[in-house]
């Protein structure tokens, strides 16, 4: 089993390089850098930009999250359909009913979700 584990040696090396880079940079900046003077102007979030105004966390309508969630959901549907469509011709030769039935039932379940979201007025921006 030594050979199988030794295949992962490059991965271990990558870990070492990554950790070395992170800690090395930090250590180097401590050793080589100078401690600068801190003023009030230097401590504001955008040192040489606009003056910050108002609270940092503005409240957003929950509708944004709902739409984002639904977008992700129906976007994944398309992600599934691409590889299915590419392989469909090959799958027809082996098991045609399963190839079509699988996708149709998947879309059917998603359609139920769509009707549910529609009837619960998740797409209605004003309610």
């Amino acid at each position, binding site marked *: *089993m030594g050979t*199988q*584990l030794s295949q992962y040696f490059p991965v271990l090396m990558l870990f070492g390089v990554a950790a070395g880079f992170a800690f090395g940079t930090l250590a180097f900046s401590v050793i080589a850098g100078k401690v600068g003077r801190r003023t009030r102007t230097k401590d504001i979030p955008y040192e040489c930009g606009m003056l910050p105004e108002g609270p940092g966390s503005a409240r957003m309508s929950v509708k944004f999250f709902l739409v984002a969630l639904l977008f992700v959901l129906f976007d994944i549907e398309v992600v599934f359909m691409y590889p299915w469509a590419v392989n469909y011709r090959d799958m027809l030769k082996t*098991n045609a009913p*399963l190839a079509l039935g699988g996708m149709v039932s998947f879309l059917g*379940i998603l359609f*139920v979700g769509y*009707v*549910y979201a529609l*009837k*619960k007025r998740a797409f209605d921006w004003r309610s």
Partner: protein
Amino acid sequence: MNHSLITTEILVILLGLGVLLADLWIRPESRPALGWLAASLLGCILALSLGALTPHDGSAFGGMYVLDGLARYFKGFFLLAGILVILMTVEFRHRLPVGLSEFFALTLFALAGMLFAASANDFILMFVSLELITVTFFVLNSFQRARLPSLEAGVKYLILGGVASAFMIFGIALIFGSANTTNFSLVAAQQAQLAANPVFLTGLMLVLVGLGFKIAAFPFHLWAPDVYQGSPAPATAFLSVGSKAAGFVLLLRVLFGAVPQITSQWQVLLMVTAAITILYGSLCALPQRNFKRLLGYSSIANAGYLLLGVAAESRTGSSAVLYYLGGYFFTVLAIFTVLCSLSSTIDNDEISALNGLGRRSPFLAAALSIGLVSLAGIPPMVGFFGKFQLLAAVLEAARLAPAFYVLLGVAVVGVVLSLYYYFNVIRAMYWGDAPAGVSLIEVSAPARIALLVCLAGVLYLGIAPGGLLRLADGAVAGLKFSPAHAPSVVTAAH
């Protein structure tokens, strides 16, 4: 290829989708009726699945899915649990202000996951079905979203469930990397070489971590008390019966279907886990004041008792696990049905809130007492005979490995401790003073039916255990147990 084998699962999923759609067009006040309809349709599916739907055993999807005795036993178990949990939810509706139909639909989807888990013969199908259960429970546990404890339960289950899933999928990746297959039967065929492969053993261990989370075994039990306390009662009931049983059927399939040889080398690990789980659950249950939290610790202790049967690594042990789960099912559902019936009159889950229940509702108090007495393992309830079977399996194993006598002692200590905390609740019901000015508690007809079914199960299976025992024994016939326990393991255990 024999795709008709999954008809039961397809029907349950269609029922869940139907409930979800029907909710959009019915009036809010007829939602409880939708629950009764769903429960009765589930009853039809159960009756059909016993015979007409899938008459022949077999496997489908390239050996990923098997239908055998073990799968049939657990499918019946899960379907019955689904029916009773939906009836319980109807009873609990006063505490679920929004989304009653969604609660039914999610219960049905979790049920479909459990049905697939009962038939999983492949690490991938195992993972997917467990995810279907776990993800659904994220929502069910945090369903009372205006209640802080319920949200806490949901978040804790989400985080710990996510970690457990990560462990499991990482383990499956290592198993696939070393065995080149994820099928249980194909893994079993090459386990002689795999037993010496550290990558495979690491992967298997990580899969066991994921399953240990599902059954709430030490040291993966930390979520159980908080989640049990905070979740809505029907979700807790389904979690403690369905989710735990799904974990155990997969544990049996992995340990005795995929890797029986490696399992026989890991007997000490199973024994130690069982012993610590029993002691931890029993000792932590002692000071509890909240009834649902008490049930959470009791569920940990019961996972330990069930692990005794797994650790025995024999046909007797595994059939005892199945029998104990069957009895535990009726007992726990009886207790939670009582809790749901009380939910409209009593607004918290403290044990002190049960004070004087013996006078306010003699029926509910008697039902709760019978459930608790059965959990404590007192004859003639089913809990006694289940523990008896498990301990008999431990004694049988002790003839080969004397370390099992220690395990037997631990189990007896756990039972004695459990007498104290279960009888504490019974004492509150019959000898506690009811608060002044309280009335009698009405029990609705469906709750009465569900309770009578559960109590009949608890008493009948305790007095006449033969039928279920034969069923359980036939169900585990397909599992493989490594015949000889290696002597080196025996000495190592001392």
